Structure formats: structure tokens, C-alpha cells
């Protein structure tokens, strides 16, 4: 598996039962390497979110193997998966999903606190991160006092605060305008290049896909394309 962070073999995921079974993933083989800045693209219902959920242990595959950072997720208990997510995975959601009762600082601090990082170390790291994501001076604002783009920056700060091995971002730019989306991508790319954080994000947005170092194209639960994202020919072929 070399320097891979995520490793999937023959992964399938079915929903429903009896006669009504939806096959969301149909035999996925995929390896994500450390330092990847990868995008999962595909039309709605192609299995992007399911793939991210299976990789993070939020969903169990119907068959196949999933390994994260050398650990077989299919063999871990619910609490072990929870612990693994806490220490090894950062999440960025389409709807930001910040805790509304916590300030920007407290949201970014949350995972560190769960990990038992001392308060002084938390403060230093979180203040630095908020500065990094362009929210210096806004640490005491509650989510309702921030714009969508600012909330997503807090979410990114929360995701990278514990320096996870992998950040999974489900449509992270879907709810923000194009200018904010570009700024968020700049931020994620900067974190990837400067801190070596591995990113895998799902997206519909071709501009976002074009920024990814690697593009994984899903169609009907299968990988239709996995390669360089510089050229959009593969996308265009799918669009067609």
C-alpha cells in the first residue's frame, strides 16, 4: 500500500432491502496517498457522499475492504471508529455544520478539546489557525454572526486543528459564491502544499475540479476516471 492513507478494495454499498435495493457503490478500488489534493466528482446519486462516508467509517460497506492509516475500518467497533475519526480525520461539510452555541474560536477548538489537548496549547494553535484562515479578530463571533464563507473557514480551521491524516470535504464550496469558493480552495491548497494535509473533496463544480491535483470521477457507483485533473476532457466526455 506504500504511502497510502486510504485504501479501498472491491467496496460495495447497498441501501434498502428486499426488492428495493439501491446500489450506491459497485466495486470501488481506490488508493489515496498522503499529500493528495483530490476531488471526487460525478452527477448526483453517483455515490460521492457514500464513498466519503465509507472512507470515514460513518457508513460500513456492504462488502469489500476499507483501510484508513493502516487500520481495517470494517473490523472496528463504533467507539473505535469514533476515536479514529477524532484523531485521524477532519470533516468539512457542505452546510458548514458549526455548533451554533459555540463561538468561532470554540468551534475550531472543539476537536482539540475532545482530544484532551491542554488549554494553553489549544489557544495558541486555534488563534494561529483562525489567523491562517483569515478570521483573525473574529474568534468571539457566533456562527450566526458570520457569513457563509466565514463559517466554512471556521469549519476548515476545525478540520485541520488536530492535524489529521485526512480531511474529507463534502461539497465544501457548494453554499458559497464563486469568489468565496475560490478563496476557500486557495486556503485548502495552501494547507495541502505547506502543511502536507491530505484532502479529498466531493464537488459538482468544474472550477473546483480543475483545481484538484487528482480527479476521481464516479458514475453509477463505479470509478469512471481516476487521474490528472488538469485537463477537463474526461469531465467533458462525461458531461456529454
Amino acid at each position, binding site marked *: 500500500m506504500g504511502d497510502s492513507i486510504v485504501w479501498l478494495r472491491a467496496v460495495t454499498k447497498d441501501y434498502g432491502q428486499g426488492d428495493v435495493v439501491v446500489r450506491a457503490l459497485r466495486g470501488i478500488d481506490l488508493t489515496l496517498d498522503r499529500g493528495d489534493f483530490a476531488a471526487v466528482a460525478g452527477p448526483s446519486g453517483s455515490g460521492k457522499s457514500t464513498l466519503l462516508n465509507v472512507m470515514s467509517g460513518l457508513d460500513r460497506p456492504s462488502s469489500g475492504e476499507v483501510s484508513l492509516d493502516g487500520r481495517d475500518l470494517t473490523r472496528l467497533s*463504533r467507539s473505535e471508529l469514533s476515536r479514529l475519526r477524532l484523531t485521524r480525520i477532519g*470533516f468539512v*461539510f457542505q452546510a458548514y455544520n458549526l455548533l451554533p452555541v459555540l463561538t468561532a474560536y470554540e468551534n475550531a477548538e472543539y476537536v482539540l478539546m475532545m482530544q484532551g489537548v491542554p488549554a494553553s496549547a489549544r489557544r495558541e494553535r486555534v488563534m494561529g489557525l483562525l489567523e491562517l484562515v483569515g478570521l483573525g479578530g473574529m474568534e468571539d463571533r457566533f456562527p450566526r454572526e458570520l457569513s457563509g464563507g466565514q463559517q466554512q473557514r471556521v469549519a476548515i480551521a476545525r478540520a485541520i486543528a488536530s492535524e489529521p491524516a485526512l480531511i474529507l470535504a463534502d461539497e465544501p464550496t457548494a453554499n458559497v459564491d464563486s469568489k468565496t469558493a475560490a478563496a476557500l480552495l486557495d486556503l485548502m491548497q495552501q494547507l495541502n502544499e505547506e502543511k502536507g494535509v491530505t484532502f479529498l473533496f466531493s464537488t459538482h463544480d468544474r472550477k473546483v475540479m480543475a483545481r484538484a491535483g487528482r480527479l476521481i470521477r464516479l458514475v453509477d457507483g463505479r470509478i469512471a476516471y481516476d487521474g490528472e485533473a488538469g485537463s477537463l476532457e474526461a469531465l467533458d466526455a462525461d458531461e456529454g
Partner: protein
Amino acid sequence: MALVKIAWRSIWRNRRRTLITLSSIVLCLAIAVFFIAAQHGVYDRLVDEAVRMQSGHLCVEHAEYIEAPAIDLVVRDVSALRKRIERIHGVESTKALVIGQGVAKSASGSVGVAVLGVEPEVEMRSSPLARKIVRGSYLAEEDGASAVVGAELVKKLKLDIGKKLVISSNDMGGDLVEEQLRVKGIFETGSTEVDAYVIQIPLGFARKLYGMGDGLSGEATRLGIVLADADERGEVMDGVAGLLAGEQAVRTWEEVMPDLAAFIEMDVVSNYIFQGIILFLILFTIFNTLLMSVLERKREFAVLLALGTSNGRIKIQILLESAFIALLGVAFGLLVGGLVTGYFQAEGIDLSSLMEEGMSISGFAMDMVMYPALTAELLAVLGAVVFAATLLMSLYPMGQIKRIPVADVLR
């Protein structure tokens, strides 16, 4: 610390709902405090007046009197016995009573009565009846053929202060006896049963009427024992039992006034039901709030679970939220209930305009001015019950956490 902060802020996210929930708890708890304290107040006063007027908290009787009350079943050597009993710690006073039946006659007619031979000085100190003289005066130690009678009896027999009445009865030997008395005082307790039926006469005269032994030792139907603190009854009862001869028995007021005891017991049960309903309303309100608050935050909890927060930690957060709501509700509920009840405990609630005829239970007139009896124990028990029950109520919402399909909710 973080959980405490999140829990505290979370209960104020839906400020209106939390305030409505708290108001419900405060109102229900305050009502519960008031009514339970009022009930205790009524019982305490009723029992206190009843025991002071009749039996005492404890009493010594002839062992067979309770089965078949008869004038010849007496306690002997009363004077010597009461001296020994009064030395027992916790005994406030003792009172000798002669209890008999008879017919009271005047020029206007005759009516069956209960004749109570009492010690005027003792009664003046302890009996509520002695304080309810509306005309004339109460008996004095030196009185002979004098009686205090109820206002209703006065009406029936057309009596008045200084007028004569004749009591006919059977003495200890079974012979028919008659004595003439003069009305010295008229009492009005508010209970028709008491006011139309009870005549009090001096103990010495009652002994003479019924042919009982008098003198230093004396005989009486009952030697009542009034306690300074009713809670010490058990110890005093043991002490008294050790002093008694074989034909004597010590009884509790519940044994000698079973009707009153049964009424209170029945009323206590009905009040338990009432209290249960109030508690159910409080808990249902809390449960509804807790459950709604968890169900409408499924997505938020799903995010926390996705981030790696353990089920247990989220459950503790919900428990803390429940505890905050319960603490606030209980604190303000007890405060409001305590203040309102405390006010009426000091001022009393006059119910006489609601019940002009008055009310009596087993022949004991209830005071129409009700004084709730608020105790720290009542507040502590009610507060603890609501608090503990709230934490129990939070178990179900807590159980919902593990059922949250995280991936589906976040999709």
C-alpha cells in the same frame, strides 16, 4: 467544562420554549408545595386540637374499653400514675377524663349528649374548646354542678347562662342517676356535631355523677397524655407501657379516634393521587422539552458524532441540559411556592366565607382559618423528587443518540 458550557447555552437556544417549560415547572411545583403544606397544616391542626380536646397523643385506658366502651371500665390510681407519666421525657401534660353518655333535659325538652368530665385548669391550658366560649365563662377548678354546653344544644333546650339542666345517666353500678347543673358557659366550635352533643362538666362532679372513686388516687375513663413533640410518641409510648398494670393499656390517638385517623388516611391517599398528577404534569412537560430538543438537533448531534465525539459524551451533555432545566425549575418553583405558602402560613387563609356552616371531621371542628405547614423537609423532598425524576426522564432522549443514522442525517 466545555460540556457544561455547551449544555447551558443549548438550553437557551430556544429561549421561549425553555422559559415556557420553566414556567410550567415553577407553577406546578409551587402549587404542589402550597397544597401539600396546606394539607399538612390542616391535619396537624386537626390532630393537635383533637388530641388536646379528647384523647391526648397517647392515652391510658382500661384494656377492654376500646372494644366495648362502658362507664365502669376505668383507670384506677390516676393521680399516682400521672405523676410517674409526667416524669417521662417529652410529656407536656396529662389530663384525666371521664367520658359518659346521658340525656340532657330542660323545661323545653331532652336530648342525648356526651358528657365529658374534665379538669378545668388542664383544659384551659391545652384544650381548644376552652378557648371557644362565646358566652359566660369556662369551668373553674372549684366549680361543682356547672356545665359548659354547645351553642346548638343551647338552642335545642332553650338554655342560657345560669339556667338549669338535668343530666340523666347510668352510673358504674348500672343505677339510674340524675344531677342538676347550671349552665356556666356556652361554646361554639363551628362543628354542629360537637356544639349539639358535648357537655363538659368538672371532673369531680362527673366522678360523683357516675359513682367513680374520687380522692387522691381517683378513677377516670381515660388519662390523656399530651406530648410536647408528637414525633417522640414512640419513645414515650414505650415508657408509659412500662408503668402500667395488667388491666390498663396505652393507646395512640389513632386507636381511640379511628374515624379521624381513617379520614386522614383516606385524604392522604387522595392527596397522593393529586400530587402524582401534578408530578406527572411537571415531568411530562420536561420530558416533552427534552425529547423535542434532542430530536430537532439530530443534525447537530450527527456532526458531533462524525467529528469523533463519543455517544457517552453527548449523553452527558443531554443529562446536563436536563439537570439545568430541573435545577432552575426546582429552585424557582420552591422559591415561589415557599414564599406564597410562607405568606399564608403567617397570615392564614380564612375559608369561613366559603363554608359558612363550618366543617367537622369525626366530631372535630376544622378551623376555618387554614394555616399551611411548610417545612424544609417538604421542600427538600419535593425538589429532590422532581430533580431525580427529571434526570430519569432524560434517559429516553439520551437513548435516541445511538439511533441517529449519522451518514443519512449528514447526507
